[in-house]
């Protein structure tokens, strides 16, 4: 049973987050170890295992990037363990420019504001890429999947960049 099946939804990138959350609560009520507190050791162990699987599935399905990656894995394309270098020069140049901006942000008059601007810009890119990704994954051809994989690789960079902005914000803000 794959994670989509576990949550009783169709194997597709598009999903309804609110109903996913509802299903999650339903599954939690059926499998959480606390519901088996007066059960036998075997029941408790089984509950822990099943519940761990449900937790893993939920966190994977609710985040678009991991959901897309998982979907491609189901279609036989393993991105998690690949050694792949991005050859898109424009994308790489853009990355370098952002990184420079991030490195020099301290020297700006209002570094926190600069960080917000940078964050907004990257968020726009993420939003844009996710829309493309959704369309590509819906086509279900080898070629579209290859293109989708490229978007996933790029999105990983973008999310990482956001994390670094977060860290920078932490070090710059008073608290």
């Amino acid at each position: 049973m794959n994670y989509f099946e576990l949550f009783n939804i169709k194997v597709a990138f598009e999903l309804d987050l609110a109903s996913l959350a509802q299903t999650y609560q339903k599954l939690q009520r059926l499998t959480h170890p606390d519901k088996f507190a007066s059960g036998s050791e075997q029941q408790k162990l089984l509950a822990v295992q099943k519940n761990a699987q449900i937790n893993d599935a939920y966190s994977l399905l609710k985040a678009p990037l991991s959901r897309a990656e998982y979907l491609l894995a189901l279609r036989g394309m393993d991105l998690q363990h690949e050694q792949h270098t991005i050859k898109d020069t424009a994308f790489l140049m853009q990355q370098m420019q952002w990184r420079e901006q991030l490195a020099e942000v301290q020297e700006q008059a209002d570094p926190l504001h600069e960080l917000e601007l940078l964050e907004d810009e990257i968020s726009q890119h993420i939003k844009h890429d996710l829309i493309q990704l959704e369309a590509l994954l819906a086509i279900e051809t080898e070629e579209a999947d290859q293109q989708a994989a490229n978007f996933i690789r790029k999105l990983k960079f973008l999310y990482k960049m956001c994390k670094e902005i977060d860290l920078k914000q932490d070090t710059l803000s008073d608290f």
Partner: protein
Amino acid sequence: MALLQISEPGQSAAPHQRKLAVGIDLGTTNSLVATQRSGETCTLPDAAGQHLLPSVVRYLDDQIVVGETAKLQASHDPVNTIVSVKRFLGRSLADIQGVYANLPYQFSDSASPMMEVVSGVVNPVQVSAEILLSLKARAEQTLGDELSGVVVTVPAYFDDGQRQSTKDAVELAGLKLLRLLNEPTAAAIAYGLDSGQEGLIAVYDLGGGTFDISILRLSKGVFEVLATGGDSALGGDDFDALLVEHIREETALTGPLSKSLHRTLLDKAKIAKENLSHESVSSVEFTDDQGHQQAVMISINRFEALIQPLMKNTLRACRRALKDAGLEKQQIAEVVMVGGSTRTPYVCQQVGEFFETSPLTSIDPDRVVAMGAAIQADILVGNKPDTDILLLDVLPLSLGIETMGGLTEKVIHRNTTIPIAKAQEFTTFKDGQPAMMVHVVQGERELVADCRSLAKFSLQGIPPMAAGAAHIRVTFQVDADGLLNVSAMEKSTGVKAQIQVKPSYGLADSEIALMLQASMQYAEQDMQARMLKEQQVEASRVLENLQAALSIDGHTLLGEAEKHTIEQALGHLKLLAAGDDKEAIKAAISKVDEASQDFAQKRMDSSIRQAFSGQSVDRI
């Protein structure tokens, strides 16, 4: 432990026979026990009417004194009076002395904190167990029977070592642990049930020695922790220590103080801190080691300036937790205040300003955690089979293992909902490498040296292979208590290693067993009787549950042959369960487990299928 209730399997016992369960808040400064009685949650007082039991244990030649009496002697007998032992649980001696200089105890020469007291050497687990035993006695006296189980609270930010040590202390006190519950979650239950509210809440918990912040979502009885953060070595005791430092500066008390003067100053600083909650100035008077009278006036402004940096640290943790939860502070509907240190008005004011809302303080901040734990204990022990309440907790600190160059590879990230299991593959880096050391660490930092070391174990017997050819799969499993199990396996050969992660500075299982045996209450005979009873209880659980399961689902999910095998194993267990051979009962339970493994799995899957098809889901 309650007497075993044996009923004819299949016909369950009197359905609503209440079992006694309590919630225990094992605090740094004070501990409490609470229970649910006729629908009300209440903390239980001692004979003198006191609800708070000071977490102080004094060792005398021939007896152990816990609580207020011990606390009163702390400054006269500092070496034998262990105060705030919770700070030492699951910690190395070097850690403890790094954080708390000037501790008045005689530590033995060992890596883990062993304290030399007049009656011998004690470790933090044993000291904590004494506090639990005192509360257990109080509860059993008040409620008039043995306890079936307890829920014990821990700071959400406790790491695996600290949790494991707490669990060990519960076992050592002879109590049945239903669950380790995070303190903020417990507080949320206590508040959530009273107001029946929905939405996002923040729990700000500043106790004597620990600080926690948790962000929760409440929805239809489900308490989902979204993020948690904090500092397991920051609390009201630090306010006291800062005041002592200030007093020393003002009176030019340089150089080492006698242990008893240091204790006296801490006690007086605590009183001054409490006075400053409702007065603008407080004075501290004492006699120094040279016999001189000293007096210092402390103003509220001075005090607030002293603790301001600590407050800032707590608010920084709040900000981080909000970010981890992906929320803005304006989205938080309520802020719950927990812990005695939130009585300091400056703390409440700062937190209120940060979250832009006035914090909830309607339940006594000292008792709210124990009360929430009592509610959960009542549910887990089975007194409320129809409850909707469900707690979803998270892992407070990332778990990882050491890789080349002293770096940490994270396997499970912090704020992941538990229980959870994750596997990661690693490989050898030398040709023919026969073994691999697995070093499990917990923390957020990249360097292993900056994280907490949880355990080291080795996977032996890897057959000769080229570097990089072996595939070693390391699986981390965290249960609902936040406790970790790790196993490692080489994939091509199936060579395995498994450990229950025991804190590097805690106790091994064998040590606990020895201590249990050594303690007066568990003479050899008692131990045997207790173990037999445990097996019998488990046997009756297995019998009852499986009989019920067979009558509901046996005909739909099982073939005749399969059903027959299970029934045979059950019959065998039923025969043995009435006897007194604990090993035979244990073996018979294993047989039943083996025979019914598939059936149990099928039932779980079928309950999930039914939930989706909209049929009745209330039978599990």
